[in-house]
């Protein structure tokens, strides 16, 4: 429901003034999602996997996570897709922990780290903020998620 609060807050003139937003008088209201853009999206890649292959080869740090109670882009979808990369395993599948509880499961592949977040929906940091914070910290440090 927090999206509704945003629709009101970001349409307030005093908020827009404080943020130097809408200085040109945009002829439509601020919305959390633009239906116009969504309906008229003109080009989309069928698959991002070729980009993953290119960027893994370029040596970028790549992490993919999935909240496991989202049914819109669910964990099974991500696993099926990533499996097509056929990456070799560096650290085998294990449960990771946050505040002495299982945060989810993870596997470190050569060039990519995959992690699930237990009990999190589509917007992982909204539903599991502590677990998402741990995930972000480990990502920035370039370290595997904690085993205990």
């Amino acid at each position, binding site marked *: 429901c927090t999206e509704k609060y945003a629709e009101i807050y970001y349409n307030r003139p005093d908020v827009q003034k404080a943020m*130097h937003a809408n200085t*040109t008088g945009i002829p439509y209201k601020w919305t959390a999602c*633009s239906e*116009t853009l969504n309906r008229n999206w003109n080009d989309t890649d069928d698959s991002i996997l070729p980009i993953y292959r290119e960027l893994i080869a370029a040596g*970028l740090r790549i992490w993919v996570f999935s909240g496991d109670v989202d049914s*819109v882009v*669910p964990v099974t979808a991500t696993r099926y897709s990533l499996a097509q990369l056929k990456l070799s395993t560096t650290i085998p599948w294990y449960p990771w922990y946050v505040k002495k509880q299982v945060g989810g499961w993870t596997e470190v592949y050569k060039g990519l780290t995959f992690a699930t977040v237990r009990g999190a929906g589509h917007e992982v940091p909204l539903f599991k903020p502590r677990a998402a914070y741990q995930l972000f910290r480990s990502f920035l440090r370039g370290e595997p998620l904690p085993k205990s």
Partner: protein
Amino acid sequence: KEEEEADRIISLPGQPKVSFQQYSGYVTVNQIVGRALFYWLTEADNEPLSKPLVVWLNGGPGCSSVAYGASEEIGPFRINKTSSGLYLNKFSWNKLANLLFLETPAGVGFSYSNRSSDLLDTGDYRTAKDSLQFLIHWMNRFPRYRHREVYITGESYAGHYVPQLAREIVHYNANSKNPINLKGFMVGNAVTDNYYDNLGTVTYWWSHAMISDKTYKQLVNTCDFRRHKESNECESLYYYAMDQEFGNIDQYNIYAPPCN
């Protein structure tokens, strides 16, 4: 420096006292048609100069980083129930990094274009190109970030934007005297591959008992998951699953009470 100061947010309405600096405003990414992207930078709450820059792109396509990334997920502020003020997010990612929320492409959130047709023919390609232009120009406005470690993050349809922007940066860096110090990216619940995403989605519905065996088999046997636009027969099956079998649930968080 003047441009940077002009973008400084003194304080947002209803904002609690904070120790970090924030800036927001527009960066023009196409002078000819007048296309400008909106950003909101919330710097790290301690030692921002020693911390990386993390760019958040939201999904959709067409959804606002300010609405979702900043206000619901990783940003320092949450909006209260009456929309009269803000309160602090205990687990804000700006404890670890400087957060740059980017509204991309034009038409998302506060970002705009003076050419109205831009809203009707945008897509992955323009999003990646404009986002790169944004970063280049933004770093001219904030030169202290020019050599900073950069990471890109996002969720959902940003599973397209984030790797696509990362690739644009890698290609740009190959021929640039001022490369962007991109170190990596992280995406969550990310749209990745049409066929395997769709197959994995209906399999998740079945394995989590959201749909019946019969509907699952019909979906797998009827739908061509490689297509952008499904057949009428397949669409009917999707509607049946959602209307008759899912029940009134929040599909984005299947065990949570729905927002009515």
